[in-house]
């Protein structure tokens, strides 16, 4: 089912300042796995709750398919919602937790007991916990609880699956396992799925498309490649992946650091001050016609590579570059660097 949220504005009661959502719009295609990525306070969870009907926005509408769901109650929207802290019913067994959504249906719409039992069994197998039906939530680990929470959400055959930081409360190893497992479940069941995360690695690895949120708006939405390779704003550049920025001056369609002209293309930006954003692997050490003098300020080992913080002569700020671990560099060395890629944004954009 296509899900679409249009121009959502949501301010919480009593909250001062800007609203949690300030005109956010998103279109999610049927069967898609979309991540809402952003720092805390960016509005990502609020957007998810608005889609679920758990929050009523001041303005804007939510469409499920062609149908305007804005006026529908939570119950009627038929969403599967999974919380960060599982919210399993502690007084019910795992099987009864999964059956909850079926048991509360009015008699005419409730499946027969045998049908419910079968569905519980299938779902427990789907989440790889076939033998856990009679256990209570307190007897399960965090990862197991979250899997049961997902099975419970799937039991009511939701139109859309919404997950609010589903792996946020789990430790790193379990997170990675569950990530792979969720991807697998998604490809098997094909549910339209939206999940919230503040972990960019999780978003890039798991999602078909990533929506980056900041200050109650969607800054960019695109495939992981698009978001990582061509960030649409300084915020996305900083938030997704690592990046550094150098102030530059734009003149006559070219960018300058001090008096040195850069060979990078300048997109249609006004004359004057701008910021150049570069990823660590966009900067290479080496002499060339367009190389810039720089000095190494700090060095640290990071996995297979070594990171060097460098200061380009004539420019404020430090940028981080990647060098081979074998390179013989010392702090204080003067080196020539070449900017292979990068993107410029007008300075007032960068301030946002």
């Amino acid at each position: 089912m296509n899900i679409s949220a249009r121009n959502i504005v949501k301010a919480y009661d009593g909250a001062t300042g800007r609203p949690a959502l300030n005109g956010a719009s998103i279109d999610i295609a049927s069967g898609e796995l979309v991540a809402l990525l952003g720092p805390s306070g960016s509005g990502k969870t609020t957007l998810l709750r608005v889609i679920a009907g758990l929050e009523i926005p001041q303005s804007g509408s939510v469409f499920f398919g062609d149908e305007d769901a804005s006026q529908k109650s939570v119950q009627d929207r038929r969403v599967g919602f999974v919380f960060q802290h599982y919210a399993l019913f502690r007084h019910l067994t795992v099987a009864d937790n999964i059956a909850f959504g079926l048991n509360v249906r009015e008699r005419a719409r409730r499946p027969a007991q045998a049908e419910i039992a079968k569905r519980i069994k299938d779902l427990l197998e789907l989440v790889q916990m076939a033998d856990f039906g009679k256990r209570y939530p307190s007897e399960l680990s965090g990862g197991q609880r979250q899997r049961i929470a997902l099975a419970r959400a799937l039991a009511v055959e939701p139109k859309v699956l919404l997950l609010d930081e589903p792996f946020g409360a789990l430790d790193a190893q379990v997170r990675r396992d569950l990530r792979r497992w969720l991807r697998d479940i998604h490809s098997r069941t094909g549910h339209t799925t939206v999940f919230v995360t503040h972990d960019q690695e999780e978003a890039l690895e798991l999602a078909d498309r990533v929506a980056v949120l900041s200050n109650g708006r969607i800054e960019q939405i695109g495939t992981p490649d698009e978001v990582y390779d061509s960030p649409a704003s300084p915020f996305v550049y900083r938030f997704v992946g690592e990046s550094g920025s150098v102030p530059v001056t734009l003149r006559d369609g070219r960018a300058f650091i001090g008096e040195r002209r850069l060979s990078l293309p300048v997109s249609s930006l006004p004359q004057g001050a701008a910021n150049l954003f570069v990823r660590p692997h966009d900067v290479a050490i080496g002499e060339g016609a367009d190389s810039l003098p720089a000095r190494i300020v700090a060095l640290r080992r990071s996995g297979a590579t070594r990171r060097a913080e460098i200061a380009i002569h004539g420019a404020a700020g430090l940028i981080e570059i990647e060098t081979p671990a074998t390179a013989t560099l010392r702090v204080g060395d003067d080196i020539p660097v070449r900017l292979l890629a990068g993107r410029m944004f007008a300075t007032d954009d960068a301030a946002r």
Partner: protein
Amino acid sequence: MHEASAIAHPQTQAHAPDLAQPAKVARRRPPVTTESPLVRRLLVAVAIAFLALFLLLPLIVVFAEALKNGVGAYFEALVEPDALASIRLTLLVAAISVPLNLAFGIAAAWCIAKFEFWGKSVLLTLIDLPFSISPVVAGLVYVLLFGAQGFFGPPLKSLGIDIIFAVPGIVLATTFVTFPFVARELIPLMEQQGVGDEEVAMTLGASGLQTFLRVTLPNIRWALLYGVLLCNARAMGEFGAVAVVSGRIRGLTTTMPLQVEISYNEYQAVAAFAVASLLALLALVTLAAKALLESRYGDELARKAPR
């Protein structure tokens, strides 16, 4: 639960197979206090003596006095018509005011813990009012409101309804005094549990009532029972507020605590202490039930819940 796990910890250590002298592990910890053994024993003795003198002794005296003239006289005193009437009245009052407070308490706790609204802190303070006000004052307020010269008294009287010096007044006063018990017990627990469970239930299609009955209520059931126990003990034992509104009409408006006082003032020690022993028994049963609840369901009671 905190205490329980703190005690359990050295034991689990002690069962580790690779420790040569497991039982002594716990004792080898450096002492936290620096008092000499003599001072320590002295302090413990003082505490025990105090407990015995002020708590245990009165309890024994109550039962001793009640049974002074033998078991026969004890039961005779209990089945005496006025005593019997007071027991009946006390049970009736508790049977009305406890369910009322159960309903009020859940409603108040629910709305305070699960919703944000203007004036919430005022409401929270108001709920505590019966705890902070003297019960006698509470009783007097009802006399002023519903008495013969009171605000609501005359119109109700013309309808043939007596509040003051009658059972309704006693129920009102008791309900007022015992109002905070259930709410106070539930609010911290419900606040701590948040609304996640309810939100999940709603997304799964449960209606408001279904959510309440199948999710909210089971989540608070032990704390609710705990609150009801305390509420009941106070409802049956309330003296001050009830004394003001009851008028102490023998056999009609005397509850058990009032009956105890009347009998005692008339030098009927056995009669007084026989009824008093029932109240003391109620207290013991309440304490036992409370201890049982705390030990078995401690993590589902707010004040012992792990944070």
